């Protein structure tokens, strides 16, 4: 490989790995430093994207072809297809995780009437630890106890 191509590969690696690490860092910031659960969910999506980019960047080689065999020719250099196959699975699983988290988010909103983690923590601290199956224990300050009981009974 010529020194020029080596330099290009160096910068390419820096851009890719730097982008992936920055994306993961921004996502973790959104999950840790923000109090709204919707923002936490968006941060989770960002971290997923960053990890996917990192994995595909690991399998990448400069001056290699896409891992598709055309006409039975297999002796051309190709990028590593294994991380690509795994990332393809991870993308679909990521949407499943996101759907489950969104369903939980809607449930939290219906039950506690808020998405602020601090207020949800207050509600959780106010209700006794073993009160979950006991229907009708009215805790002062929880506006939607009926929703909770209906939810746990069904």
């Amino acid at each position, binding site marked *: 490989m010529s020194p020029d191509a080596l330099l290009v590969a160096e910068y390419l690696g820096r851009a*890719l790995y730097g*982008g992936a690490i920055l994306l993961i860092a921004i996502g973790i910031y959104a999950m840790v430093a923000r109090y709204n659960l919707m923002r936490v969910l968006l941060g989770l*999506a960002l971290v997923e*994207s960053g990890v*996917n980019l990192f994995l595909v960047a690991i399998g990448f080689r400069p001056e290699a*072809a896409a891992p598709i065999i055309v006409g039975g020719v297999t002796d051309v250099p190709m990028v590593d297809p294994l991380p690509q196959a795994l990332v393809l699975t991870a993308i679909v699983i*990521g949407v499943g995780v996101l*759907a489950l988290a969104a369903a939980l988010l809607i449930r939290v909103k219906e039950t506690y009437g808020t998405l602020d983690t601090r207020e949800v923590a207050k509600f959780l601290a106010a209700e006794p630890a073993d009160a979950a199956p006991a229907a009708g224990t009215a805790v002062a300050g929880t506006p939607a106890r009926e929703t909770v009981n209906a939810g746990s009974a069904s």
Partner: protein
Amino acid sequence: MLWLVILAVVVMIAAALLTVFLRSYLAAVAAVSVVSLALAVIFALLRAPDVALAEAAVAAGLSGVLLALTVRRTGLWRSDAGDGKK
């Protein structure tokens, strides 16, 4: 190709920052879709066309719709102040 990758990475990081700091939740969801689309461009440039297709269709399209519906169900689309930082 190097400049295309750098441009896509810059767009991706900018959209990720917008996701965290935009006050409107609907706009933040749109920014997440922009992140996924830029990521699909990067995947295509990294010679992973199948991953790029899945990322653009599933991650940008389907999960964007999912998150937008969540924003509607939880009534966050009109709270532009948000109970975000403070």
